[in-house]
């Protein structure tokens, strides 16, 4: 190689983030003495415009042809500095980044040791970068079609946004209807607008939109491919009613041999009964009933007169022989909006859920106060009586090391909302028991103030127990709350008729399976992990897959909708660009060295390597290669080379780290 290597090294202070623990000046002085280094500077903020200008200027003035920046994680600013190189007229891959913040200054306390570490890493980068070659980014076209997984408010909003932008959207929902948790709510906080009034029109738009294909009662079972070109398998469970033939008259339900509902109605949280053939709620989308084979007599015994089929008559929409089907679709991007599940109150036995009938979960109360709920909005206990006093216990299953340690974020506000609604419906005395009231949203604090003025009690203390232990006649027949009123400083016993548990939000039981299917990561509590908590909150580490709503972390409706819009916008940005740039880190075979042993072929998870019977050589399809480098490590003759992670580059880095200068 005739080219003279001229390296510039830039060490960042990051304000005091790095400089407090690493002697930045010493690192820069040290770097100046390393081989090939022509310029070595330190600067307060390398990622700022002046910082980047420094690089551009030096490339011109000092004819630099290699750049090393020692600052933060490449996951944060590698792109920034590569762009600076390009603008300075240098190939952007003649660059190496050194992570002396996340992996050095922030994790060590010993300043001399952290400084030595930074020097070692800079030396390694200087050694490595000398071997870098100019590369060109690859590019793959992006399919315009989008898959949205989960038809709650997040999925609905994302799907509509994309469809309105003219993109074809597949919306896949696991339940028989879209609408998610929001469809079960009565009112929404803090404005108290009716959940159905704002949700159902959007649900209808989904059904009517020419650009949306809605597959309810379906699940994504396999995802192959990569950004721009995913191949997705959707399994459609049989609902035993043909969606294209059904007109939604619901006469079949009327005609069922069960004259009354007999089975737990999941939508009403078990507070009412449904038939084996049912529609979850009157405004369900699609307006198509579903038959539950677990309870339908015909499925269980084969001996039903099938009055539902008769009722359907000429329309022939009921098909009891329907089988599970699969659809395979090609999409360019995916939005995951799979939502959350509610904490199971049985896991906090001190509150007597499942033991005392008048202990309810918040979601049960949502149905109870709902005009279209099991009691048509009349709030009555299980024995039909109207409660005169209600306790609402906050943080059930949240902020608790025994269950879920996180704050579920919406419970304070929905508890206030339920307190208001219960007061409105029953005029009962309402007691809220809280650890901290968290009302940091628009109009939230004002709502809290309104509730205080309505005479709702707020008692600061985590309830110790709910029992039917009657201390004296005033407590006879009641549920008794025992709690320390931490602000007044004494224990209290408060007898009530009804207890509402403000259960928290947690990841779905199968979140880990779903995560694997979409090649995502979960954060420690099990919600899907975003690419960056601040700068890329809806992106994931899998390009082309975006997150919306509570599958990422607990959030309320406004935040969910905002995030759904953001996810849709991210997808649109990719689609409108028409293509996505990819790292040129693919592997290729040096034909002159390949012995044709075929060791590499089974190594590739993407079947990118083929063996030519003619030439007896392996070759790698550059479009299929994802750059993992597994084949490179397996090649016995060393004839596979990986761009950006070539053997000699890595050896240089190892040597650089270990050689004590």
């Amino acid at each position, binding site marked *: 190689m005739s080219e003279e290597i001229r390296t510039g090294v830039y060490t960042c202070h990051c304000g005091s983030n790095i400089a407090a623990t690493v002697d930045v000046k010493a690192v820069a002085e040290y770097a100046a003495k390393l081989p090939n280094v022509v310029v070595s500077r330190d600067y307060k903020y390398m990622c700022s415009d002046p910082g980047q200008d420094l690089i551009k200027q030096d490339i011109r003035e000092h004819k630099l042809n290699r750049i090393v920046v020692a600052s933060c994680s490449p996951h944060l600013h590698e792109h920034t500095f590569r762009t600076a190189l390009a603008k300075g007229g240098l190939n952007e891959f003649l660059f190496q980044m050194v992570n002396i913040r996340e992996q050095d200054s922030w994790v060590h306390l010993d300043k001399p040791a952290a400084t030595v570490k930074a020097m070692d890493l800079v030396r390694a980068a200087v050694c490595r970068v000398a071997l870098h070659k100019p590369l060109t980014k690859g590019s793959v076209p992006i399919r315009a079609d989008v898959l949205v997984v989960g038809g709650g408010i997040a999925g609905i909003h994302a799907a509509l946004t994309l469809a309105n932008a003219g993109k074809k959207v597949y919306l896949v929902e696991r339940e028989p209807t879209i609408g998610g948790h929001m469809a079960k709510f009565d009112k929404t906080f803090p404005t108290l607008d009716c959940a159905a009034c704002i949700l159902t029109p959007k649900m209808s738009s989904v059904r009517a939109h020419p650009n949306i294909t809605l597959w309810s009662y379906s699940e994504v079972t396999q995802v192959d491919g990569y950004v721009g070109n995913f191949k997705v398998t959707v399994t459609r469970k049989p609902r035993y009613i043909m969606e294209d033939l059904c007109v939604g008259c619901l006469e079949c339900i009327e005609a069922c041999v069960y004259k009354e509902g007999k089975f737990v109605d999941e939508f009403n949280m078990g507070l009412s009964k449904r038939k084996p053939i049912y529609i979850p709620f009157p405004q369900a989308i699609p307006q198509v009933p579903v038959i539950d084979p677990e309870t339908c007599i015909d499925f269980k015994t084969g001996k039903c007169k099938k009055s539902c089929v008769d009722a359907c008559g000429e329309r022939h929409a009921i098909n009891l022989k329907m089988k599970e089907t699969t659809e395979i679709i090609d999409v360019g991007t995916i939005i995951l909006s799979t939502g959350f599940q509610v904490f199971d109150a049985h896991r906090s036995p001190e509150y007597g859920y499942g033991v005392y009938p008048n202990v309810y979960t918040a979601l049960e109360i949502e149905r109870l106060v709902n005009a279209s709920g099991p009691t048509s909005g009349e709030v009555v206990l299980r024995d039909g009586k109207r409660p005169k006093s209600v306790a609402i216990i906050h943080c059930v299953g949240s902020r608790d090391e025994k269950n879920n340690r996180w704050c579920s974020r919406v419970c304070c506000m929905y508890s206030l909302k339920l307190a208001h609604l219960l007061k409105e419906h029953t005029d009962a005395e309402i007691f809220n028991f809280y650890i901290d009231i968290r009302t940091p949203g628009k109009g939230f604090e004002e709502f809290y103030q309104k509730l205080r003025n309505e005479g709702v009690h707020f008692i600061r203390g985590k309830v110790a127990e709910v029992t039917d232990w009657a*201390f004296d006649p005033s407590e006879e027949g009641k549920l008794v709350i025992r709690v320390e009123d931490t602000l007044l400083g004494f224990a209290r016993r408060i007898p009530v008729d009804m207890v509402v548990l403000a259960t928290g939000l947690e990841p779905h039981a199968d979140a880990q399976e779903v995560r694997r299917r979409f090649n995502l990561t979960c954060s420690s509590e099990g919600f899907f992990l975003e690419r960056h908590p601040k700068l890329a909150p809806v992106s994931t580490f899998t390009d082309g897959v975006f997150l919306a709503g509570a599958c990422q972390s607990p959030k309320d409706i406004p935040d969910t909708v905002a995030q759904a819009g953001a996810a849709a916008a991210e997808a649109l940005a990719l689609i409108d660009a028409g293509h996505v740039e990819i790292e040129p880190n693919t592997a290729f075979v040096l034909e002159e060295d390949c012995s044709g042993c075929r060791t590499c072929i089974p190594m590739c998870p993407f079947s990118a390597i083929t063996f030519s019977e003619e030439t007896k050589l392996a070759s790698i399809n550059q479009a299929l290669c994802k750059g993992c480098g597994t084949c490179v490590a397996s090649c016995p003759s060393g004839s596979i080379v990986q761009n950006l992670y070539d053997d000699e580059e890595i050896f240089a880095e190892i040597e650089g780290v270990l050689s004590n200068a």
Partner: protein
Amino acid sequence: MPQDYSYFPGCSLQSTGVAYDESVRALFALLDLKLHELPEWNCCGATSYMSIDEGSAFVLSARNLSLAAQAKHRDLVTPCSACYLVLKKTQDYVEHYPAIANKVQQGLQAEGLPPLNGVQVRHPLEILYNDVGLDRIKHASVRPWRGAPIACYYGCQLVRPYCDSDQQQNPTHMEEVLKAAGIPTVDFALKTKCCGGSLTGTIPAVGQRLNYLILKEAIRKGAGAIVTVCPLCQYNLDAYQADIRKSTGEAIDIPVLYFSQVLGWAMGADAKALGLQRSIAGKQTIKQWFAASEREEKAHV
């Protein structure tokens, strides 16, 4: 085949809780379970000891565990809730705190005792539930129950904080075992409330108040007797009823028995072997339920 266990009665079972010792031995014999009392066992290191000198309390407790490890029966049975807790706590702390493990290790070494290794500390109730099983209990229960339904009272230290077999906040094993033996129970919200422990002796007004609340709620729930798993609970609830009658003016007189007494009874042991004559409260009721029907049975034979 008989099953063998090491047995740690603890100090209470030699005096105020002697009926517990008698009935556990009788019950285990009926079920073909062998108890081998640890030779030269010492105080478990209980609550009060823990308040003075934590370090030597752990060593004291560990000596018993080490003796059990030597005895080579797989499990160490202790009926006293406090002993159960302290022994388990010792294992927990030895596992989690190297400094305590060291101190315990040194103490044992000085005594020429082997180190702690994997002895399981178990309570007779849990053995009945897990090792014997509800089916066998059902089959072994030969006497029909003629008494009133029972309030199962677990107290604190058996279920908290080291119980790994039953649910800590709502244990149900006692109810299930009694039910299998054909003995009815009532729902009892206070089943894991504290009996006051040694406060009955140190601050009688406070201790007895706690006893009173438990007794009263059991009666309100229609229980004819309270059944316990702990010698101190039994003592507190049993021995102060006369004082409580005097201070509250309420006619409280309810038998407080050990679960091993009622189960032993259901399985055919005689009243004396179970120490039923050692109860202080509810003597009349006990006579009616047990002694009378035992006489009946004898007359039949």
